[in-house]
């Protein structure tokens, strides 16, 4: 059992050392203290052998008994003191430092993680890693350290001491404790098997809940709610039945583990009685042995509960480590800076890591400095992927992308980002003042510059009308900003950044017409003198573009100016005509 816990414990130990980083030394030190604590505790227990023998000898020699008792007390004091020292790791704040340093490292990793990797994480997963996984695993570190040390050193010391007293008793312990190993495995495996089946049932249930909640308007209309939502009720019942199925099997080893010490005691007493009867073992020694072994009951029953914790910590650590070890995209040598801002795609192929199909196929085009290029096509055709590749969302499998003649892989990532502003459809505002939300694009900007940018983005007016003006915190009134106002703040941010390349990804798609006009004006200001890439659904918006790329299935099928494309009567023409027809549609009763 010790050995087994040892293997999984060793893994956790290694990971712990890795993640504690600069505090690994402190953690090791605390483990060393715990080791001493439990060895001395075992020795103190061991003193029962001589103590009880002397106490119940026919004639007690008080001085001898007191000496042994003294040693026992001394060992206990050493044990308690070292244990106290060991717990300094968690009770004197080191753990807080570890949490801090781990989260800082995670933050740095996240900043540098390739965007493709980043988007592969669900937001909830990353939140969990940063927040609860760090919290759970690190806060338990001290506790776990002490438990591992206890499991390793207490039984070993006791067995070793017993060996000197009576090797047969020691042998029984050596033989019996490892019996727990198969039990331990069964617990883990039962855990895993059950979990698989249970996870499936639970996933079904989760899907069922989502379907039920989202479908409620329909389900209500057709009276299929509550008990009449048969599928959902079945899923609920199924969870219960899978749980019940696994229950009897899964609980037995747990409980058996809990009484393993009792079983060992039983065997020791059984054989011990023979030894006592044929006078090869003193009864007092047997009694002392039983008293000592009984002391192992508690740590082992703790272990049963701790196995679950081990799994928790183990998976938390692995998830944290995965984030920490994610390699940022490599900057190729020599590192260069672009002189101008024309963008060229040369025979670019790209496939997302999670997909088999190529998202971009053999795409080549050139955007001269300070021109506007529009990308149009059906949703899912690869428009956004192209803009992502310009920002080095991920590296292409084939071909290269250059800005001002410099391959973007040769550009420092901060430098690359410095050249590009993006206006997204969804706007993210920090829970901070409006001033800081705009200013983040250029921390050196003066308040005047911020106001100028806001003016250019047509948001100065409504900001000034707020009671606290630019110092209004967005969190306080976040909800009461309209979509258009949020979008204009984000454009002010982009104007202040003044990057030579501007990417517009359907910036007005989610707006109502009232705010659209203001946002449109703001965009007109933003794109002055810039190299502009715009993704737009409404083709009239981009009819003035210097070049229009029509994308279908990851390929450029047409390109040219609006008039040329209309004259060609191809895909662009079809899209244009359909939009013209829809424009004319109106509801008539």
């Amino acid at each position, binding site marked *: 059992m010790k050995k087994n816990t040892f293997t999984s414990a060793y893994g956790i130990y290694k990971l712990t050392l890795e993640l504690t980083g600069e505090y690994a030394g402190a953690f090791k030190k605390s483990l060393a203290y715990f080791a001493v604590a439990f060895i001395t505790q075992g020795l103190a227990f061991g003193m029962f052998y001589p103590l009880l023998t002397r106490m119940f000898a026919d004639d007690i020699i008080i001085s001898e008994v007191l000496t042994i*008792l003294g040693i026992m007390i001394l060992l206990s004091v050493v044990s308690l003191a070292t244990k106290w020292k060991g717990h300094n790791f968690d009770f004197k704040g080191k753990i807080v430092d570890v949490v801090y340093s781990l989260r*800082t490292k995670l933050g740095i990793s996240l900043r540098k993680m390739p965007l493709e990797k980043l988007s592969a994480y669900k937001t909830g997963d990353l939140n969990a890693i940063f927040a609860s996984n760090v919290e759970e695993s690190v806060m338990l570190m001290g506790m776990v350290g002490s438990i591992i040390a206890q499991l390793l050193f207490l039984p070993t010391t006791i067995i070793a001491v017993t060996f000197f007293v009576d090797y047969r008793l020691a042998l029984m312990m050596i033989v019996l404790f490892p019996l727990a190993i198969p039990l331990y495995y069964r617990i883990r495996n039962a855990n895993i098997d059950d979990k698989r089946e249970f996870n499936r049932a639970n996933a079904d249930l*989760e899907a069922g809940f989502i379907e039920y909640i989202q479908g409620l308007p329909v389900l209500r209309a057709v009276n299929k709610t509550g008990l009449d939502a048969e599928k959902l009720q079945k899923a609920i019942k199924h969870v219960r039945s899978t749980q019940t199925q696994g229950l009897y099997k899964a609980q037995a080893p747990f409980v058996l583990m809990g009484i393993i010490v009792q079983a060992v005691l039983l065997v020791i007493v059984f054989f011990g009685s023979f030894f006592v009867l044929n006078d090869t073992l003193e009864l007092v020694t047997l009694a002392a042995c039983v008293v000592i072994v009984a002391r192992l009951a508690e740590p082992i029953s703790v272990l049963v509960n701790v196995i679950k914790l081990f799994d928790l910590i183990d998976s938390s650590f692995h998830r944290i480590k995965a984030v920490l070890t994610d390699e940022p995209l490599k900057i190729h040598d020599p590192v260069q800076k672009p002189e101008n801002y024309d963008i060229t795609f040369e025979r670019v192929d790209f496939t997302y890591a999670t997909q088999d199909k190529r998202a971009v196929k053999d795409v080549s085009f050139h955007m001269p400095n300070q021109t*506007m290029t529009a990308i149009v096509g059906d949703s899912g055709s690869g428009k956004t992927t192209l803009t992502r590749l310009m920002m080095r969302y991920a590296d292409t499998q084939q071909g290269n992308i250059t800005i001002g003649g410099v391959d973007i892989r040769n550009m420092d990532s901060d430098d690359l980002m410095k050249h590009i502003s993006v206006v997204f459809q969804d706007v993210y505002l920090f829970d901070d003042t409006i001033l800081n939300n705009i200013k983040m694009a250029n921390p050196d900007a003066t308040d005047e510059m911020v106001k100028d940018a806001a003016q250019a983005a047509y948001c100065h007016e409504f900001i000034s009308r707020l009671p606290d003006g630019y110092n209004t915190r967005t969190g306080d009134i976040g909800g009461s900003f309209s979509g258009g106002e949020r979008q204009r703040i984000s454009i002010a941010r982009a104007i202040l950044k003044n990057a030579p390349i501007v990417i517009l990804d359907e910036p007005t798609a989610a707006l109502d017409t009232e705010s659209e006009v203001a946002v449109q004006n703001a965009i007109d200001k933003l794109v002055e003198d810039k190299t502009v890439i715009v993704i737009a659904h409404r083709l*009239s918006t981009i009819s003035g573009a210097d070049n229009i790329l029509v994308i279908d299935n990851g390929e450029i099928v047409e390109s040219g100016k609006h008039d040329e494309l209309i004259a060609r009567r191809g895909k662009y023409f079809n899209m244009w005509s359909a939009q013209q027809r829809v424009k004319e549609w109106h509801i008539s009763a």
Partner: protein
Amino acid sequence: MNRNNNSQKGLWAITGPVKGYIITAVGMAVTGSITSVMIFILLAASGGSLGLYSMPLSFQQSFLILVLVIILNFLINYYSFVVSHLGAFKLEEILRTRLTARLAKIPLGYIISTGTGSLKKVLLDDVKNLHAFVADSTPMVGKSLAAPVASFIALLIIDYRLAIVATGVLVLGAGIMYFVMKDDAGHREKYDENQSEVNRAVIEFVQAMPVVRTFDDGTTSFKRYYNALERFRTFGKAWIAATGTAGQIALTILNPLPTLLALTIAGLFFVTQGSLEFVPFIAALMVSTGMADALMPLMWMRDFLKKSKAAAVRIHGIMELPELAVSQSFERPEKFDIAFENVSFKYNSQDNYALKNVSFSVPQDTTTALVGPSGAGKSTVAKLIPRFWDITEGTIRIGGVDIRNIETKTLMDTVTFVFQDTFLFNDTLANNIKIANETATNEEMIEAARAAQIHDFIMTLPKGYETTAGDRGVNLSGGQKQRITIARAILRNTPVIVLDEATAFADPENEEEIVKALSNLLKNKTVIVIAHRLSTIKDVEQIVVFDQGEITETGRHDELLEKQGTYERLWRNYEKARTWDIHHEGEKS
């Protein structure tokens, strides 16, 4: 204080349905503790019978009883867990069934505004949390409370003086623990506050990462994140400084060594005095295990209990939501004109009225458009008709009947809110359409699909109408999903249709088909449309213009233009937005 009280009650009230299981499990856990103590006494007794001590039972007898008691102990512990788990499974089922039934009765508006994610979390995770409470905590609590008591009683019987000594150590430990926990409570709350502040910072940092990458060289957002970490560290240290030492003391006292030492010293004294014999002493040494050690799990479980309480509060929150008021006598509307009479409405959580004194009427089989700037109240009006919310003042009538007097089922058969339910069930396309009307024949269903412009597409799928939609089925584009839900609405054929035009064109794909499908749906119906593209409503019978929750104008398109009011302004804006093309003057080359 009050809230705390509530949550205490909450946990008990909510586990009410499985109280029998809980009581049985706790009872068994208590019995288990008693048998554990008996095992130690029997061990000492069987040892004693080997020697010269006068024991009531022979070694064989006591050993046999020992074996039986250990088996009994195993069975009791085993079934205690089995029972508590069975109770937990049952509780999950009961709570989920009740919650889903509840969701069907509360205002749909609540469900929509709360969101699928949060509701699912309650149904899935919070319920799971209570499972853990019932399954694991209740037997543990039983054990932790019973073990010290049983051990104490056993010690009393063995030797009252040793009982006093052991209790003394325990009281000291418990006293310190009480001190630790008491001191803890205030800090704890502050800790939680800090904790959620860090979590907020984490979420912000993770979610804003795309924006951070483009707009921030790492100084602003990173600083915010760091600052939150820094504050958490400072606080954490202060917290530990205040409570850490006390925690360390508790861990030291609750170690087996102090009790054992105290008993040994006392025992030695009594033995030399001649007032304590071998067997009782050995028994006392073993039994004392149950005293201090048993308290440890209680310390561990506090966090756990808190989580369960929070979960219980959230579950109660849903259970206690008011149902939509149901009238005593239902009426069935014969006609389908709609009338708003002095309707005022505010959302539960807000002070301001979302609608103020709104009156208008929609004659049967005509179309009325609701227009206005965002937040003016037009979507609120639309949501009140199918009773997503109940109004605060006034009356809404369909065919002269107050909608509160129309049975839910009847109301649902009268009004369809298109696009509130673009959700497709994880079922065949045929069933997804047919759910609207179970008695419909296949021909009628196909007819509806045709009218919704989706039949041709469905026929191109290998499995046609038998294709499964949703997670495990074919991936449909947003536009295709919308048309399937239009087919559903066509098959439902309710006399009143409420349409949100903004969501209708949320997916820009296949606009033309959607337009055709909508035209078919709206034929010969009483229609209320929330309009954004003002061109679509040029010909409708009535346009109602909203601003800040009030009606400012009513009339036809031409009449409203002449009035030069809100509508005229909206129209001008609309025209401008529609004809915008990005004004880009960058090219210098």
